[in-house]
């Protein structure tokens, strides 16, 4: 059985056709303005030699930057009514506080703050006020609101107020799109609410993207299942993605790291993705990217999404090299490398020219760099090596040696063994590692809760949160029997009584209902 992985990036749309672990076809196309025609072009390219095998394709996995870009470019965002349950706390800090004006305006100015929510110890801040809820519902109905975001203080600990209000909204406005904050974000009400607001605002667009994608691929004769990449390196069913588009943010770099793991079989490694302008260095731990712990801004909005921890160096194939070779980057000719670089007939000395001049890569016309001073070449080469070594040293979790996996088009820049690496791997198909990462992923589910180990013993608490994460994974398309815990994070909370702990459990499982007889990717 075959799988297709597609990764839509800002510049390129990559696609691969996999038979188990084997790459049967791969392509790199330009991302089109409408995205879909670029996807179809990539799909066509990988199916050229496999016409007639459409029925053997069991699934198409799509990783896409469309939703991140919609937020950054303030496109395709629909109006959202925000309902926050937490009064009388937070008076004067309405939903969308602190947002840039332009994106706040895209979501309109319908927001409601009502009584309810909980304190850290489970005590109610206030009970839901029936009359207040009814007034909100009446207003939503009179304004014919189509998208509603509901958040509540301490909903990661007690989601009932969000659920109760959602039930009322659904009854009054059956066709409305609703996001509950405890389903998309982590602890921290503003950041979680922001994440939920962005998600709600993207629901209309997500509906259209998923529908047109599925229709187009079906139209090409593929009657298979469809999945979308999440930012933690797992998949969700395309139907599920209609409800959680914000979970796709930053899935590109994650897929690249996951693909590098797949291509090398390594669970713990450093992955260096070298492009035209930057090198992104990430860490694989247990086959998944190490996550960043800082507040993540998406289009200027503070969120607490899970994102891979990446170090971006200003070093790529198009990096401009100073005349004496001592300075490489961060200025770059970028995507104009073909045209401006010396070996491509241009006038600018770039990192790629240096590598070609050193005889370490066959790109463009080597004759055009034959005149370069060997000393300049040597200086620039050692500078490139030094930059990568230092970057890797910064990211390495400990002094223990780790293998380094090189992916991306600019990986030709690495001409000698890096001292920071135990071994260096240059896997085949590295240029499309992100599409491979999308294709091989499992279904994921994650739940974060605040629990008191005094009230609920640790084992029972973990089981409770695991069960919730497993339900999320099943809803996203996982087969229940295959679900296993991928990660448990426990953070003790200062000042709180009763051994209060922020407990996060991530689970992964195989895709439900797929024939796995030929699937050799199961045990990552």
């Amino acid at each position: 059985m075959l799988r297709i992985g597609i990764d839509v990036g800002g510049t390129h749309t990559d696609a691969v056709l996999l038979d188990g672990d084997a790459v049967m076809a791969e392509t790199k196309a330009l991302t089109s303005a409408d995205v879909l025609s670029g996807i179809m072009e990539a799909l066509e390219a990988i199916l050229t030699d496999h016409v007639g095998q459409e029925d053997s394709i069991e699934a198409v996995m799509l990783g896409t930057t469309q939703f991140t870009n919609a937020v950054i470019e303030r496109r395709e965002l629909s109006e959202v009514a925000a309902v926050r349950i937490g009064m009388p706390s937070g008076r004067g800090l309405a939903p969308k506080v602190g947002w840039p004006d332009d994106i706040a305006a895209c979501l309109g100015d319908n927001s409601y703050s009502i009584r309810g929510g909980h304190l850290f110890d489970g005590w109610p801040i206030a009970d839901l006020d029936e009359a207040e809820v009814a007034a909100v519902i009446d207003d939503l109905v009179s304004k014919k609101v189509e998208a509603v975001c509901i958040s509540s203080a301490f909903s990661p600990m007690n989601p009932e107020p969000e659920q109760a209000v959602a039930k009322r909204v659904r009854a009054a406005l059956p066709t409305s799109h609703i996001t509950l904050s405890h389903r998309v974000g982590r602890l921290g009400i503003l950041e979680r609410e922001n994440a939920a607001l962005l998600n709600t605002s993207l629901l209309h667009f997500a509906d259209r993207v998923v529908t047109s994608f599925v229709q187009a691929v079906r139209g090409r004769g593929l009657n298979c299942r469809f999945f979308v990449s999440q930012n933690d390196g797992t998949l969700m069913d395309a139907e599920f993605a209609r409800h959680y588009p914000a979970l796709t943010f930053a899935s590109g770099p994650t897929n690249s790291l996951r693909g590098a793991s797949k291509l090398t079989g390594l669970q713990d490694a450093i992955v260096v993705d070298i492009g035209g302008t930057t090198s992104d260095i990430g860490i694989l731990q247990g086959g998944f990217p190490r996550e960043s712990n800082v507040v993540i801004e998406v289009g200027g909005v503070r969120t607490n999404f899970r994102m891979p921890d990446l170090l971006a160096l200003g070093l790529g194939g198009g990096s401009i090299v100073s005349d004496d070779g001592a300075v490489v980057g961060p200025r770059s000719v970028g995507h104009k490398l073909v045209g401006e670089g010396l070996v491509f007939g241009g006038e600018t000395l770039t990192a790629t020219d240096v590598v070609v001049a050193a005889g370490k890569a066959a790109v463009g016309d080597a004759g055009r760099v034959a005149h370069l001073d060997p000393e300049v070449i040597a200086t620039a080469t050692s500078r490139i090596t030094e930059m990568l070594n230092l970057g890797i040293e910064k990211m390495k979790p400990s002094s223990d040696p780790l293998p380094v996996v090189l992916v991306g088009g600019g990986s030709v820049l690495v001409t000698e063994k890096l001292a920071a690496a135990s071994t260096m791997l240059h896997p085949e198909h590295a240029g499309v590692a992100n599409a491979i990462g999308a294709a091989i992923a499992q279904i994921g589910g994650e739940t974060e809760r605040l629990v008191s180990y005094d009230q609920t013993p640790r084992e029972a608490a973990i089981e409770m949160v695991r069960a919730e994460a497993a339900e999320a994974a099943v809803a996203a398309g996982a087969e229940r029997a295959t679900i296993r815990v991928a990660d448990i994070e426990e953070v003790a909370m200062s000042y709180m009584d009763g051994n209060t702990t922020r407990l996060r459990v991530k689970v992964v499982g195989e895709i439900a209902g797929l024939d796995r007889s030929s699937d050799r990717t199961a045990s990552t």
Partner: protein
Amino acid sequence: MMLGAESLEDLSLGAAFLATGGGGDPYVSYLATREVLEDRGPTELISIDDLDDDAYVVTIGAVGAPSVSLELLPSVDDPEKALLAFEKHVGRTVDAIVSFEIGGGNSLIPLAAASARGVPVVDGDGMGRALPEAQMMTYAIAGVSPTPALALDYAGNVAIFETDSTATYERHIRAMAGAMGGMITAVEHPMTGRQLKHSIVRDTISFSIELGRVLRENRGNAQRIADPLRQAFASSLYGEMFHLYTGKIVDYASSIVGGYDVGQATIESFDRDAPPLTIDIKNEYLVARIGDQVVGSVPDLITVLDYETATPINAERLRYGQRVTVYGIGCPEFYRRPNALAVVEPRCFGFDIDFVPIEELSTHHLDIEG
């Protein structure tokens, strides 16, 4: 000097630097204070030199668990309500307000109260940094009674404290903060202008704004920020700033002991050309050592910046693998006095070491990339 909403971003950034790992994320306090200043107008910031000796001054700020306020949002009118309730209790109006802790969000809350009530804020605070307990405040060290004091919760409920013992007050307000949702607004340490003149760490609000400006204008790699920061501290009431270390966190463990976030971080230099640095944490960064050698300790300031962005990092946000730069700064002179050291020296936090001023330790510093 009038402080408008536009000063608050720099003030919060500077306050996060001076928080030495504690004090919580000032972001929500920043948002709430900004709303008040935009709505009610700028706050007047006056020098301690211009304060009348007989003025009636109080401190105001949030007390409780920063991690709790991640979900329990403050209200923009909490500071005003707390002050009004306090004035009602003591039967008189307040002439001026002062911060008790410059490190973190409590640098901002006094501005909100002052703007709403139309009284000035005195430039300075009672710590010059962040510290975990009330008896460590300069006001308490100078013998100012913490009470009458008042705590206001999210719903406007009020508790009054009357005790002359700072230790009793600290114990009571901690318990009350827990019962009131984990985070309260406290009005405390009422005193005269004369008392404040003897106990304030002066000019820290204006210095924090200056520090924030330096951090903002030199945003980027921590190497770039070192010289401008050093210059800023050189012309302040703080001591000299030293680069202690640059590297990545290779070990970080913390646990909750007696309500405090107690832990230790180990930082290793990028190319391992120096032995690792360890930092002991009890809410704040308290003791830094390279091997067995102490290179900085409380009450001197130890602060950790993100290496790529030069953003100050709270202890609760430290994480394995982070790339950081660590600076040590001599504390304001007040804390070098014997009666102050008696309550803030390393032994008060359970470390069996003598306090040695950071400038006397400086010969041991390994100057790595900074």
